[in-house]
């Protein structure tokens, strides 16, 4: 009997001890209790209680404010450890949208590791502080973002004109006060792109400077040339309160990533769709070859540096990006985290983009070229060749632009080159609208410095000649680069139905005769050390021979 009695006594004491341990863990050891205990409000210690921001519309119950007490709605003047500090001023009130909508992480959790999403089995870890503004991408789709150069131009104008003297931008500037030290500084321009600036701001500034209520106005503003004003407008439109993010997107629109990747339905098909590249579950991402911490930011950065190292067998070439570019693109990719939030919460820009067909990229030719073409054809249209991939022609080559009519270039952009890497960018395929294609053509002409192709009065097909002689010539001079059957090797494939149906005989003959200076394509009109000069008849014969492929299977 005593054995059983002792068993009962000891096990009961053990149960009691464990229950006490559980109670201590629950009521004393929770870190948010300790943090709140250390925090001091304006009227002494704060209430130690679980705090949360509930946003039914976003299905959020964010308990982050249990530790970050200073960020809880209605709390002001909280002092204590840095974790209880107030939220820096941002566009959105945390009390209205909660925390996780922007920052990610696990709002329901009350322990740091769980809440920051560093725990296993939580698919949306928190964005690191340096990428905090990537959270904007959860709801926002910034529209009409130009390429990097346009943005930089605008910024230079902004600084050259010393707008920062009166205006604040992202926390800088705004020291000059018209009317003396007591006067008002100019409005903060950090979010002017989101709110929109008055269209007549320039005229208004000029008028005030002219009327000159005080000395400051008289000296601080003067007439500005129209180009500079246009650049400035582009820059100001990009000031939406997300420092760095629009710049990162501009970089994306400079390096031509959309040539292979779709984002929100627009872009090429060769690479994976990036629409939600920033919302990938790290638990389902392969970090085997990623040095450093297994975070999505790290993965994206390493992948940008050397895609095939991170994803063995990846077709994406190493782009030779600078570290700055890697950082910028990583930042932008992390912002691609479009949420399924109800439409009532959508901001204006996302509605514009998804309901009204507003473009995410600016409509000018340079941005369009940077967005879709630059990765393959080069920033200056100089042509590119990545290891293991076929050559992308130099599309801004002056010799090319001189013989290629606008219709030919536009047709090529719209219909692509089936069977080659060049996709069709027409509205039904790649999604470019006719006026956008025209803008790209204009941009190419600007890049190459050839305003228009030489006039061609001939009909599309005029060449007459001996196709067999052409075949002989082709074998001798062309097959080495373009392939014996025109299938392409170092040079582009010529046996391409779309190429041959859009190219006129003049175009082909002229290309053979002139070549493309600055590329591997020599001009056969003049002799060189490796080939004699081809006569006009020879060229015609070659054209006739190449033409035979137009209807070949």
């Amino acid at each position, binding site marked *: *009997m005593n054995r059983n*009695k002792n068993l*009962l006594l000891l*096990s009961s004491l053990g149960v009691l001890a464990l229950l006490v341990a559980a109670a201590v863990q629950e009521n004393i050891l929770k870190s948010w209790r300790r943090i709140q205990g250390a925090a001091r409000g304006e009227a002494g210690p704060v209430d130690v209680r679980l705090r*949360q921001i509930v946003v039914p519309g976003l299905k959020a119950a964010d*308990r982050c404010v249990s530790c970050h007490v200073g960020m809880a709605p209605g709390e002001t003047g909280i002092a204590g450890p840095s974790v209880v500090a107030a939220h820096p001023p941002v566009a959105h009130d945390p009390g209205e949208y909660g925390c996780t909508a922007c920052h990610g992480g696990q709002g*329901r959790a009350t322990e740091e590791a769980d809440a920051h999403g560093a725990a296993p089995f939580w698919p949306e870890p928190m964005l690191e502080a340096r990428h905090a503004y990537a959270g904007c991408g959860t709801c926002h789709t910034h529209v009409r973002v130009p390429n990097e150069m346009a943005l930089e131009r605008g910024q230079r104008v902004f600084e050259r004109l010393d707008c920062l003297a009166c205006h604040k931008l992202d926390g800088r500037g705004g020291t000059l006060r018209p009317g003396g030290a007591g006067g008002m500084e100019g409005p903060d321009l950090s979010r002017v792109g989101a709110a929109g600036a008055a269209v007549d701001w320039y005229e208004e500034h000029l008028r005030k400077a002219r009327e000159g209520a005080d000395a400051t106005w008289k000296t601080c503003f003067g007439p500005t040339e129209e180009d500079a004003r246009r650049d400035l407008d582009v820059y100001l439109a990009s000031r939406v309160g997300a420092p760095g993010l629009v710049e990162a997107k501009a970089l994306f629109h400079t390096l031509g990533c959309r040539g292979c990747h779709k984002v929100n339905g627009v872009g090429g098909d060769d690479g994976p769709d990036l629409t939600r590249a920033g919302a990938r*579950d790290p638990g389902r991402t392969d970090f085997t070859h990623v040095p450093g911490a297994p975070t999505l930011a790290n993965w994206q950065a390493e992948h940008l540096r050397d895609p095939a190292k991170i994803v063995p067998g990846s077709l994406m070439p190493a782009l030779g990006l600078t570290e700055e570019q890697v950082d910028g693109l990583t930042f932008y990719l992390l912002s691609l985290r479009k949420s399924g939030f109800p439409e009532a919460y959508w901001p204006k820009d996302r509605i514009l983009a998804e309901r009204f067909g507003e473009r995410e990229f600016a409509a000018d030719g340079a941005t369009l070229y940077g967005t879709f073409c630059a990765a393959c054809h080069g920033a200056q249209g100089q042509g590119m060749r990545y290891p293991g991939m076929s050559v992308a022609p130099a599309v801004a080559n002056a010799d090319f632009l001189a013989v290629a009519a606008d219709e030919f270039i536009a047709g090529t952009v719209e219909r692509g080159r089936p069977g080659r890497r060049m996709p069709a960018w027409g509205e039904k395929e790649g999604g470019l609208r006719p006026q956008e294609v025209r803008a790209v053509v204009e941009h190419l002409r600007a890049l190459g410095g050839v305003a228009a192709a030489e006039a061609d009065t001939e009909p599309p097909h005029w060449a007459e000649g001996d196709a067999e002689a052409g075949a002989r010539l082709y074998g001798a001079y062309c097959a080495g680069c373009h392939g014996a059957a025109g299938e392409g090797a170092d040079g582009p494939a010529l046996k391409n139905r779309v190429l041959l149906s859009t190219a006129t005989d003049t175009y082909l003959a002229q290309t053979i005769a002139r070549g493309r200076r600055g590329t591997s394509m020599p001009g056969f009109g003049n002799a060189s050390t490796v080939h004699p000069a081809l006569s006009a008849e020879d060229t015609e014969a070659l054209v006739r021979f190449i033409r035979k492929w137009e209807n070949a299977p």
Partner: protein
Amino acid sequence: MSEQERSSSALREFARNLRQAPRRFLETVFRHGPPRTDRTRSTFVFGNVFLHLHAARTHRWSLRWTTTLGLGLVTAAAFVITLVTGVLLMFYYKPYPDVAYQSIKDIHFVVPTGLFMRNVHRWAANVMVVAVILHMARVFYTAAYRAPREFNWVIGMGLLVTTLGLSFTGYLLPWDQLAYWAITIGANIAQSPREITDALGITDWADIGGLQRQLLLGSDVVGEEALIRFYLLHVMLLPLLLVALLAVHFWRVRKDGGLARPADADRRLGPPPADAYPVFTEAPRKTYQLAAVVRGRTAAVGNGPEQTVPSMPHLFYAELGVFMLTTLICLALSLWIDAPLKELANPNVPENPAKAPWYFLGLQECVSFSAFMGGVGIPLIVLAGLGLIPYLDREERGTGVWCGGPGGWPLVRWATLFGLAAAIGVEAFAIRCGWLREWFPDIPQLVITFVNPGTLLAALYALFSLFVVRKQNSVRAGALALFTCFLCGFVVLTIIGTYFRGPNWEFFWSPADWPKH
């Protein structure tokens, strides 16, 4: 006595009654005084609705720790713990997809001691599954299923199945990836009779598998219908069934004469210790029996002094002790290891490997050979075999003694060796060399259904035990061999399924070798 005096004496009486009320209240609750004499100890037991399922006196054999190891009590205690914690969890749990997951997160993070309660619930459920299997093994190895306890063994089988059902239905409720895909596997197992009906070409008319799956899920996929079904089964139907079966189980223990003990138990026990309260310290002069109503032998006539002690307090100390020990184990495990909760269930992202709860992984291993045999065939054969044991083994030697009867410990050791070797051997062969499908790609599925590593293993075990029956000339010996083999097979297959099966149910020495995505 004046009117005034009468009313004042009534007032005094009122005051006195009021003063005495607490004591009287206690007296009316504990009507028979403190349990200090044999008589009051007995009354303590049969005068209490909850305790009177016990006999007023308990044989000393039953109180030996080695008799039962308290395993049945552990199972019952674990059930009580799951019941209490389960009811607490029900206050916060919301059985609707996605919302369910959020409510579990809330239980984890903000419900006071919510995580702890969920841990206790989870661990107690696991303890219950382990204990119910061990309890069955104990009853088997002490041959305690023999007459008159045959039917109680069958009730025990029902309790085993109900316990597994409770645990399995609880698995879906968190609505995380683990739950979702484990139940998807379970539902596919329910559908496995299709393997037979497909092979026979009668699925169009008699789709038993599809019907079972439909009944289980209430839909074609694991969704809200399935969740509400599992919830209802988990919190209402199965617990009610379990309580009912448990009541019968306990009652039959009592009616069948307490725990089984060897015929010479009294001699083996020796004289009672000084602090025990034996009854019938002298040979009984008289026994009482409702001879016309109660069947069986009278307990006392001609048996001399019995080695029984009052259940109060001896048995109740033991029972409470085991209960508290079980609680202690569950609490300790709960403080140590948290119940798992993966990411929100996502029907578009299958878990690979998707694994059923651990106690079904042996079956899932068989399912990987043949869905029908693993999911339906082998479990039915095992259950039928277990249920038949008390009706086939009608010997009397060795009742109430561990591994008693023909064969004994040496046989159990040999059977363990054979059971492990056969299971590991068959598995190793199948893993290394593949099976019929790899050798003859065009072989009809029906052949594989009946000839696969699972059925081969079962056949080996059956042959081995038939051999033992012949050799020992005893059915009990054969049963001993077969049961031991099946336990070994269960353990080996469960371990392989748990630790050595990776994506696409392929064999890996360690999860570190799993291919990455």
